[in-house]
């Protein structure tokens, strides 16, 4: 099956792309997709503990199973608003 992976902000910079298509076996979890990304772009590893994940534009858990055609988004810690955000 095929899923669309979305990457945002610094994750996008590290991977050099904000959107990619991945082939994955049925029953794969978001976490397994993430692990594949880390193999390809080791710089992503530092986000292992701090990313959020969404499936089809709804927040999900890393152990969520994804289906053919799903959009899986990985997101670094958020920084909306205007006043200082501590790194």
């Amino acid at each position, binding site marked *: 099956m095929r899923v669309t992976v979305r990457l*945002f902000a610094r994750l996008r910079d590290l991977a050099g792309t904000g959107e990619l298509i991945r082939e994955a076996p049925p029953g794969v979890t978001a976490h397994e997709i993430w692990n594949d990304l880390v193999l390809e772009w080791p710089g992503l590893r530092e986000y292992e503990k701090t990313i*959020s994940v*969404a499936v089809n534009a709804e*927040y999900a858990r890393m152990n969520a199973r994804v289906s053919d055609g799903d959009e899986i988004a990985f*997101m670094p810690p*958020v*920084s*909306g608003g*205007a006043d200082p*955000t501590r790194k």
Partner: protein
Amino acid sequence: MATPLVAVTSEPLDADALVACVGAQGDGAVVTFAGLVRDHNQGRQVRFLEYEAYEPLAVRALQRIVDEAGEMWPSARVAAHHRIGRLEIGEASIVIASASAHRGDAFAACRYAIERVKQIVPIWKREHFDGGDVWLEGATADPEDRAARDKAYRIACA
């Protein structure tokens, strides 16, 4: 066209339009919050900011926040718009408006909303400063995190 209660937009934000969309004749108190791009941060001279959003999820997260505030302060109605794209110094990246018959509720709901925006809305800012740029990162977004929600509620000092 009626102003929506929540929005993620590249257009300049309009606090008056937000006030109009939460205001009603029964209300005695309207509180607004605007977050403006600062000209300095951590000792750096900021040139401008660039905001990026996962838009469909950001809109849902804003709606969630508006709903949470409405549950906690039933007398209050909240609206929140976040801007994305390039923002110059002094421009508003977020505007929140809150109306209630009771000023305490209007303040609390508005404060709660901005705290929650910073916790769970998938928007990121890249700071362009003299000499470079850097993505700023705050909280790991987890809308189900009860401790984060409780913290926002405490800060709102209801």
